[in-house]
């Protein structure tokens, strides 16, 4: 299964070097991707799947767009 993954702010350092495409053979959840990227799950504060807020145990589907953010704010 191929998804798009985007890591932002302090999580940027975990962005795969090859780009945004991420292969998840056999499928999985956001949590699986986070671990595969080497991110400590507690560092992730906001998760978007296709622009919608999602929990860590959200199951991903082919072609999903996953955005991972630490705690950020501004305004």
């Amino acid at each position, binding site marked *: 299964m191929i998804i798009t993954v985007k890591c932002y702010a302090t999580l940027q350092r975990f962005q795969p070097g090859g780009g945004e495409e991420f292969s998840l053979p056999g499928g999985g959840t956001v949590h699986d991707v986070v671990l595969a990227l080497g991110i400590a799950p507690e560092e992730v504060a906001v998760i978007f799947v*296709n622009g*919608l807020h999602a929990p860590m145990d959200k199951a991903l589907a082919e072609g999903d767009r996953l955005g991972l953010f630490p705690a950020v*704010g501004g305004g």
Partner: protein
Amino acid sequence: MAKFIRIDMGTRTAEIGACPEKYAGLAGRGLTSMFIADEVKPTCHPLGKYNKLVFAPGFLTGTSAVNSGRISCGAKSPLTGGIKESNSGGSFSQKMARLDIKALVFEGLPADGKYAVVKVDKDGVTFDEAPAEIVGAGNYDAIKVLQDKYGPKVGVALIGPAGEMKLSAANISFADPEGNIRSAGRGGLGAVMGSKGIKAVIIDDAGASAVPIARPEEFKSAAKRFANALTTHPVTGQGLPKYGTNVLVNILNEAGGLPTENFRRGRNEWANNIGGETMAATIEERGGKTTHGCHAGCVIRCSQHYVDKQGKYITSGFEYETIWALGADAAIDDLDAIAYADREYDEVGIDSIETSVAVAVAMDAGVIPWGDAKAALDLIRQIRQGTPLGRILGCGAAAVGQMYGLTRVPVVKNQAIPAYDPRAVKGVGLTYATTPMGADHTAGYAVATNILRVGGFVDPLGKEGQVELSRNLQIATAAVDSTGMCLFIAFAILDIPDGFNALVDMINARYDLSLTGDDVTALGKTILKAELDFNRRAGFTSAHDRLPEFFEEPCPPHNTVWDFTDEEIDSVLAF
């Protein structure tokens, strides 16, 4: 005894009195709004003889409490026609507080049409003619001239050419500790200052004593707990110092709430080029400053020095809303170009949100092409030149929309809607619709709860819970705006209850009071009610609390629409 200073610009005289009893328990926005509601004729012309301009530091300004140096400016707004409080960083407020000045009130109109520099120090108020070289000049040079003349450490509030031209989006600029610029940006208060013939106000606290603290030990311990909340919360302790407010570009883009091409869609393909991550990397690579505070004692330090390729300073206080408006709403995929525009806004003294949204509206009208950085800069520079088109732009998004016959004009009460699409971040849409300030994200920042998951979570795309969220945030914000605190402390105290308790404890220790959290809420309600009442007397009705009808169109990628009923909107501030 706290001083209350009234300055008559008609006679160039000042009356230094004791703070009236009814304002003794107020500060910041609470004081400016109650004062405007009491003394300004609601139906007056904002640039006429009945309007008054008031500056007030907050409850904790001048103390050792971190992040407490904001100044509130109030008047009837030339942009909205309603009451306005606009606040800013810089050094001015702390110096006012150390001189024990509760409020500076500017009244009357100049007899001769000349610009004055008003100087306030421990001996009183003096009036000088504005030096000829600063009239019509950019604000950076003007601050240098004024600090050469009055002293390198004096606080400066000033208007630029936009304020002199009395444009509806003119701001009041404040010198920061390095002589750079912060702004009370929104609502055109610079035009009010210009109408009163005030080029600048200088404040010199030489010889002033420290702000008195009634219960010093208690204050010290509460101040420590408060600072601890700010430094431990990841938003105020890590995200904001590292990336500035511009960290929001990518998260709003992911959420589908980043208004692009005059609010046609909520996501674009180039967002990361203009986002906080790219900005911080660019500043670092060029040897600029990624973090600094807008006033002494700030521990969040969300500001920065954005520099050019040679490492030369361009601008600071380079905020998300400005970058969004030019970078996404006007589709200018070029951070350097946006920085030069931001510099010009500071030089000319105009609201960077209002004017940037106006640029996007001008693009929509076909005045200049979408995304054309050079054409946008040329257009913005016309403000300083005072051309007819420059003046229209300087009167804001609604003025541009009206001149070019557009219906797609993102304003409420004539003030431009910032940075968060109300169809994809519905809570903040209710704030835009109902705040007495005109569309203002800071008046009730539901983005925190809708998008950032700070202070709980309310689904941004749904209606459930949004009315209460916007209401509660608007009440809390009116209170926070009275403390002198930077609003960003809210990120920490929404999540860390002891941070909020420490804030109340500091106020109690400073003034020997015993306020509770409920009293803070009651204060927020009192302020909002006074502001709403002023607007009612100025002619506003619930019909003014509506978003433009183009928000009935679906907003990609979620294709949600603005779907609150009139009854739901009207219930937001029905308390």
